[in-house]
């Protein structure tokens, strides 16, 4: 990985994650600088989604620490939230709001001054502008996913956390996603994404989560 000069860093140090009283992974470290990307890989249930929620601040680590430019993330939760775009398994699309209304709400919450121009550009990029007045409930699976991804462009945030973002996308849309990610990185953004499919990100790091599975002793003592 290359490192810029004026760049930020996002580091994890000895992270451990407990879900449902079970240790999912332990002793996980990584370091990410501006412009870099990280693939999370591993079989089903190895903790990719859990790690992404942890990085987003939705889950609290059972041990270890996340830091942004060396400062622990836990000290400034709202500041961290402002740095992040998270795309999870759920689409967060309101069935009765139109495509544009759905997107605009999120854009304004992230950046109140974000213009409608930005939302329009995001929808156009993901090929949804012609559907802007269609209510959310009439979208197909892939259209929903694209609307969800359009949030990434509707407001700026340096860190993108994407949980299997290519699910339900057709090939053309996967290409668009790859291009969008490349631009984000070119502008100094970071990307962490989990996937089982092939997504083409040049020079991305790879983190195999099954390697951080706890030894059974640790697992059985999760709590104690």
């Amino acid at each position, binding site marked *: 990985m290359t490192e810029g000069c004026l760049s930020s860093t996002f580091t994890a140090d000895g992270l451990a994650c407990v879900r*449902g009283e*079970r240790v999912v992974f332990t002793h996980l470290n990584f370091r990410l600088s501006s412009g870099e990307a990280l693939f999370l890989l591993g079989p089903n249930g190895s903790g990719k989604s859990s790690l992404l929620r942890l990085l987003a601040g939705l889950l609290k680590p059972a041990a270890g620490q996340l830091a942004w430019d060396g400062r622990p993330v836990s000290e400034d939760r709202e500041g961290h939230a402002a740095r992040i775009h998270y795309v999870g398994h759920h689409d967060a699309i309101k069935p009765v709001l139109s495509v544009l209304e759905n997107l605009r709400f999120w854009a304004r919450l992230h950046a109140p001054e974000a213009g409608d121009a930005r939302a329009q550009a995001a929808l156009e990029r993901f090929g949804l502008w012609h559907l802007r007045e269609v209510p959310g409930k009439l979208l197909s699976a892939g259209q929903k996913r694209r609307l969800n991804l359009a949030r990434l462009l509707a407001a700026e945030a340096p860190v993108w956390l994407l949980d299997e973002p290519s699910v339900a996308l057709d090939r053309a849309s996967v290409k668009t996603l790859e291009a969008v990610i490349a631009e984000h990185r070119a502008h100094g953004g970071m990307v962490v994404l989990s996937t089982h499919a092939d997504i083409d990100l040049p020079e991305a790091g790879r983190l195999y989560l*099954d390697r951080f599975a706890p*030894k*059974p002793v640790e697992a059985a*003592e999760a*709590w*104690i």
Partner: protein
Amino acid sequence: MHRFANPARFLRLAAAIQPWTAGATLILLGLGLYFGLVDSPADYQQGESVRIMYVHVPSAWLAMAAYSTMAAASGVGIIWKHPLADLVAKAASPVGAAFTFVCLVTGSLWGKPMWGTWWAWDARLTSMLILFFLYLGHMALLNAFDDPTRGAKAAGILALAGFVNIPIIKFSVDWWNTLHQPASVSRVGMPAIDPAMLLPLMLMGLAFTTFFVTILLMRVRSEILAVKVRAIRLTQIHSVPGSATGELVGESLR
């Protein structure tokens, strides 16, 4: 993970204290019952029915004390994330609920001869009933989630929010004119009660307290063991037979 929680030390401590509190409970109960049922005078107004006081009032105290314990433990659990605290809260609520029930029923049994009715919608009685519902809600919430830690957190928040009810119970008789007796023992200054009645009341109060401590210790031990059992179960369940990470290798639990 939470190595500082150190339940091993707690288990040792609990095992050491428990015989003493249990013994004290027996002695105090014996003395309290003797003075309460035999060697104390009947009230000049209430007659022999005053003897209900020696179980009614201590159980009322204990009901509130158990809730306070629960709320305090929940606070510790939420702020410092000490997992033992959550277990203490979980262990306390059924005990508190049981004594709230005793207070309600003995109060009713006392009310019939004294006020001529089993129940009145008076502030103290009502707030005590609400306390009972709060206990029930706490227990229901604890068990309403698949993930026990999640249940503990939600119930903890409820316990803290419900704590506003405790001062209401305590001071309702002072704030509103009610049917129920105002404080005569626990009020500021000298208790306005005959020492011959105060002695058994105090003995029973102490006995209930040591009883609570004994039961609480036992329940917390039990909860710790339950966590261990679940942890082992989970590793067994999730270990994929044959995969490198899944085998049940390792030392037995301490």
